[in-house]
């Protein structure tokens, strides 16, 4: 090695030492003085550039700057780019979870995946428990119809809404006390459930059917005028008759009353009117039954 070559090697060695110390400043060009070393110089310059790029990328990654773009064509940072991709996907998955999607599953981050998936599972269980509590809080346990609390909430919602006219219907089950007293409460409960099914079958999916308690049911029919509500009564009567054609120890028989409310009319008053009409229907049905029995006796 001559003196000039030794000098160039020392220079190159200094460049590499600087790189090892973390100094990625550009290499001082020496190939003009020594064209034979052009390739080596280019390689060192490229290495310095890749290392500088890698340092910036890894630093940004450590600071959690996931929005940065990954430097292309830099094999020194391949595993970090993979980690960057994983973290970006994980970020997207977390956003999905925050939006309510609990079907996300992580399978690319070792022990973290296990912990993360356990967290999602716990959230799923929590959601199920909350849904169960919510369900129980708004449903009647015997019939699975809505309960009085939910009915009142829905009535208030309907009053604030825009889907007028709204019809409110009261349906009172005839003869429940007699069934309970003569055939027992188990059969009485079956009657309550069957009656609920009759009502459920007669309405649209957006109507609200509730059991207010005992033998008392109530319906909210949004967007239904008096003609529509009368049609619902007809459907109830048809389904009731069909049910009663089967021989059983009891029959489903409703006394029904409804009233319709326009915009601005308080639904509490509508409910009151429906209730009054239901009682009138009950009296009329009782009278008709008594008359039929007298006729039968004679």
């Amino acid at each position, binding site marked *: 090695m001559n003196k000039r070559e030794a000098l160039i090697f020392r220079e190159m060695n200094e460049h590499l030492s600087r790189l090892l110390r973390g100094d990625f400043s550009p290499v001082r060009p020496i190939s003009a003085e020594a064209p034979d070393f052009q390739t080596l110089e280019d390689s060192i310059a490229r290495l310095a550039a890749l290392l500088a790029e890698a340092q910036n990328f890894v630093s940004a990654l450590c600071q959690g700057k996931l929005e940065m773009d*990954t430097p*292309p064509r830099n094999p020194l940072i391949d595993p970090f780019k993979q980690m960057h991709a994983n973290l970006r996907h994980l970020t997207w998955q977390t956003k999905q979870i925050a939006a309510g999607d609990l079907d996300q599953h992580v399978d690319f981050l070792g022990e973290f995946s296990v912990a993360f998936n356990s967290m999602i599972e716990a959230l799923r269980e929590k959601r199920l428990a909350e849904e169960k509590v919510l369900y129980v809080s708004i449903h009647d346990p015997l019939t699975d119809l809505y309960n009085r609390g939910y009915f009142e909430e829905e009535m208030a919602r309907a009053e604030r809404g825009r889907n007028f006219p709204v019809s409110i219907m009261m349906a009172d089950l005839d003869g429940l006390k007699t069934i309970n007293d003569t055939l027992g409460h188990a059969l009485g409960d079956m009657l309550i459930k069957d009656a609920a099914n009759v009502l459920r079958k007669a309405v649209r999916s957006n109507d609200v059917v509730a059991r207010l308690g005992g033998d008392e049911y109530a319906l909210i029919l949004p967007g239904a005028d008096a003609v529509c509500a009368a049609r619902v009564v007809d459907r109830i009567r048809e389904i009731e008759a069909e049910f009663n054609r089967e021989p059983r120890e009891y029959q489903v028989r409703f006394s029904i009353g409804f009233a319709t409310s326009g915009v601005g009319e308080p639904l509490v008053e509508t409910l009151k009117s429906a209730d009054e009409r239901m009682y009138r229907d009950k009296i009329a049905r009782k009278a008709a039954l008594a008359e039929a029995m007298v006729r039968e006796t004679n």
Partner: protein
Amino acid sequence: MNADRKYEFTWALLGNITEGRPNLGHMMRLEVYRLMQFCFRDVMEQRHGNEEADAIMYQSGYLAGTHFHRQLIGETASLAELVKKLQSTLKDLSIGILRVEKHDEETGEIVMTISEDLDCSGLPVLDYEVCTYDEGFIAAILESALGKKFQVKEVDCWCTGDRTCRFRAVPVVG
């Protein structure tokens, strides 16, 4: 159907594989698929030049993506649902492992990656992206599912030294 066309694509052209290959079945070696794909590409490049070959690959991917969506994905109510269906379908068919990195609600930009990609994973580093077919495929699926046109560009690829292919999909304005 155009009378001059011999093989206008329909899903039926894929045939009844169960009946046709009772012994060999649906599977074959990936090399065979790549052999066909890269030989097609080679000849297209020779005859039409690189740019036109890329355009043909993109358009072919787009056609495939449209049919793929119609036959195997179907309607989805949101991007999240689409991603979920697409992830499981691509994995079931051993096409690749899809992940979404970004969805910008304002601009509509979507960045997704495909690892172990059918077309390129394991190829030599060539210093340029090769998944042009995938670009068109993804563009068609996004368009079919989300109802707007997308321009999809591969920004990282196994062939540029990355371990995963990254695609940036940008809605086409106007």
